[in-house]
């Protein structure tokens, strides 16, 4: 997805997304924040990436990919400006976000998508590839890169700040 496509998206619009997602949640965001505060180099490049707030389950035997689904986005609101400053194009999660998140989507011209929660077996079938990018010691909270095909998304906050919830 490119910047100009992001600006065209309207709230409630449904998409079948094919491409890359960066999977990270609470602990990984906190680690990135700590690295930035020490002016250290980050272990991931978030430029023009979409961040998916999730932590996958362990994969079944003979597979790399386990059940995966969104976690509550609101917990990540305090890190949202940090990742927008790192040129993240949008975020994916579940549930309503704070007023701050809406303001940041307007300010940086970014979007927030939701994807169905409690549907992790289904979503795992849209994941074609997964690899750990950073912080493997965090287990399900490590940063992963996933490639998805026809991954269901709904625009929950658009770049004008219009929102579903």
């Amino acid at each position, binding site marked *: 997805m490119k910047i100009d496509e992001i600006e065209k998206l309207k709230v409630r619009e*449904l998409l079948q997304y094919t491409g890359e997602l960066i999977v990270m949640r609470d602990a990984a965001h906190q680690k990135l924040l700590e690295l930035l505060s020490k002016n250290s180099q980050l272990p991931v490049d978030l430029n023009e990436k979409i961040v998916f707030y*999730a*932590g996958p389950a362990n994969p079944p035997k003979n597979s790399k990919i386990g059940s995966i689904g969104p976690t509550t986005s609101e917990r990540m609101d305090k890190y949202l400006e940090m990742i927008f400053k790192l040129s993240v194009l949008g975020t994916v999660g*579940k549930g309503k976000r704070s007023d701050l998140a809406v303001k940041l989507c307007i300010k940086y011209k970014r979007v927030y998508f*939701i994807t169905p*929660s409690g*549907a992790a077996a289904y979503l795992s*079938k849209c994941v074609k590839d997964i690899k750990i990018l950073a912080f493997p010691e965090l287990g399900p909270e490590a940063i992963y890169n996933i490639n998805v095909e026809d991954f269901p998304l709904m625009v929950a906050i658009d770049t004008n700040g219009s929102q579903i919830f």
Partner: protein
Amino acid sequence: MISKREIFEKLSNHIVQVNETINPEVKTYIDEYKGPFSQALKENYKIAEAEKLPLCQDTGIVEFFVFLGNEVILEEPIFSTLNEVVEKVYTENPFRFSLVSDPLFERKNTKNNTPPVVHIFQVSGKSLEIKFLVKGGGSENLSALFMLKPSIRVQELKDVIIGHVKENGAKGCPPLHVGIGIGGTSDKAMVLSKLALTKSFKERNQDPVYAVFEEELLKDLNTLKIGFQGLKEGVSVFSVHVEYAPTHIATLPVGVSLDCYLCRKGVIKFEDR
């Protein structure tokens, strides 16, 4: 004596099953739902069951409610058995390790989803009944305790609960199961609210006054139009259950616990023959 092996085998199978197989009471509601993402939710439970994958990646913290008969003899403290059951189930299945050891400083993942939370209630007789919840973190974050004035009117109490669900319900993967614990002390009210979540949707309180309270609250909460996924379509709350206990004249503790739409729970009973 009830053998450790018997508890271990039956309970392990049951915990695996509730993580992978849709709650039959919930299935009816999903099948009727036609709103956004309905196809994904229907496909999800079919794939999970067929491929033995967890329905949700958040395979939760397991919370046990153990009703232990005073004439029951066990091979070891029940907590040890339950701990081992959880370790086996979560390390041998494609589930997630969602627990961290100390909660504040290191937050190091325990890598086996232990320890579970265990509440033990001593009862009379020769049976051992174990109820459990597989409780996800998203809905757990919406738990609340209200220390209300004892003179509060019933409608005011309803308004407190309705206000809480209205404000937070969309974040807990609705439709929700609402558990309410009234009375006891602050801690007791919270435990009772969790215990209320182990009930079947159609079950009603044995006390007719509380049964009416449950039904009225269910009706009121469904006027909130939170809907599946918080997208305002479909039912908002599956059921409401109250557990109550005597309390101090100066207090009215009320615990509220919400369970996500998957309502992963089980009950299993053993007899000491």
